[in-house]
């Protein structure tokens, strides 16, 4: 596994040391640990802000890790943060199957030893019309696809989230059909913007954000960026995806951020950037038009929303 400078002290160890030092001040401990953890992120800021758009400001670690849609841990935004403590993201394997040369199961460590972890600061736009700016660490999905050796007949990639109701309390209720599934067209999956993220703000992916490995597709609504992936399947037909199956009139397979195509329940023309008071205009393809618009030049985006 490649190590970032900011990762040299593992986050857990860092917290434990703090706890040890502050141990005698039991009552003040929680507050102190939290604030010093944030201080740690602040010192890393220059690394991330250099690839930040001038109109954007990074969201704080607290914002990114306490306000999540991850129904496996509950349907409220605060649930993933509160209910993900028992989730065990290691050891972890990813099963590769479908139209590939040889179906196989990769150890996550093995995947990570074959890829380059890099920093990517992306806007994340939720279909519910809120957004954040997040400094991810990860690698291009295309690198894993190369390792998987798909056949030329593979036109789509499907992703599946882990199913562990004993560790993910939200899965004990049939809110949606478990396990969560998502999919991309092959050219979308190969696009250099599409990454598998393994960390944020320089340490391992928090459970509530999709530990240990999740997809990030920054020009699509957040629900496409599937979390805690255990299986990747290569297919020749468009796969079923969870939200589309649940409410096809509301959520499409493509789910590209598009201010001109409204969701029946939310106008997609504007969004609230978490931490800001006034709404912002939503950008076409979430501002990544230059990088991805060509993928859809033959597609009617009002029909294939």
């Amino acid at each position, binding site marked *: 596994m490649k190590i970032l400078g900011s990762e040299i002290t593992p986050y857990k160890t860092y917290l434990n040391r703090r706890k040890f030092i502050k141990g005698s001040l039991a009552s003040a401990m929680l507050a102190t640990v939290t604030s010093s953890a944030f201080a740690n992120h602040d010192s890393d800021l220059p690394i991330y802000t250099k690839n930040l758009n001038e109109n954007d400001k990074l969201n704080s670690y*607290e*914002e990114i890790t*306490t*306000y999540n849609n991850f*129904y496996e841990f509950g*349907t409220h*935004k*605060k649930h993933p943060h509160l209910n993900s403590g028992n989730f065990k993201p290691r050891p972890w394997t990813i099963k590769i199957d479908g139209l590939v040369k040889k179906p196989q199961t990769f150890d996550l460590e093995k995947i990570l030893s074959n890829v380059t972890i890099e920093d990517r600061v992306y806007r994340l736009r939720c279909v*519910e019309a*809120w957004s954040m700016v997040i400094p991810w660490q990860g690698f291009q999905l295309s690198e894993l696809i190369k390792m998987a050796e798909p056949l030329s007949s593979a036109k789509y990639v499907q992703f599946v989230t882990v199913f562990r109701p004993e560790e993910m309390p939200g899965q004990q*209720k049939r*809110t*949606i059909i478990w396990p969560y599934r998502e999919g991309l067209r092959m050219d979308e999956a190969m696009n250099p913007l599409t990454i598998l993220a393994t960390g944020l703000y320089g340490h391992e992916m928090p459970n509530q954000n999709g530990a240990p490995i999740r997809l990030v597709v920054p020009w699509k609504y957040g629900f496409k960026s599937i979390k805690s992936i255990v299986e990747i399947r290569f297919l020749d037909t468009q796969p079923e995806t969870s939200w589309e199956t*649940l409410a096809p009139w509301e959520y499409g397979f493509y789910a590209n951020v598009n201010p001109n195509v*409204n969701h*029946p*329940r*939310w*106008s997609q*023309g*504007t969004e*609230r950037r*978490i*931490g800001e*008071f*006034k*709404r912002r205009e939503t950008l076409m393809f979430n501002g990544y038009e230059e990088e991805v618009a060509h993928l859809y030049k033959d597609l009617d985006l009002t029909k294939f929303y």
Partner: protein
Amino acid sequence: MFSTRNFNRSKPVLFILILFPSLLWAYQFITGNLGVNPIEKLMDELGLMALRLIIITLMITTLSNIKSLKSIVVLRRMIGLFAFYYVCLHFSTYIVLDHFLDMQFIIQDIIKRPFITFGFISFLFLIPLASTSTNNIIKRLGFKLWKKIHYLIYPVAILASMHFYVLVRADKTEPVIYMGIIILLLLHRIFKRITRPQLAQ
């Protein structure tokens, strides 16, 4: 047997209890303690409180059928007016904080999004209820007409619960519970009418 006096005595306490959440949320909002998305949080809390109070007013009427609780009905007006108070706060949060008085956008939103349409109509129907709430007006209108106007509480309650139901993306348990309670309370009224029509005024 609880007397009218018992219930009247509880009014100041209830008043403070029901008012308190709005003051707390306003304070938390101003001091930045309402979480990561405070405007959304504020709107959700205010709306949920309003819906619950609307349901409580329906419950009060039903409870007043029980002999020993007959006088509970004296609490209904205050709670109904508080429901209106929370709906107004909920609606103004939407207009002022969420959309910054962008009226063109808001009108589009009300027309195009069914859940906002439901909520808006529910709000409109509450206005005649709230504005006919003094003894003087009841006297002037006559009890019969006043009562007719106040049947609007039924569409108000149904629309408000639908507003909540449509808003929730998955796991509709909570809105379904509210809808269930409203339906039971309405069924009880219909049942009462059919079995004892002479009691229905």
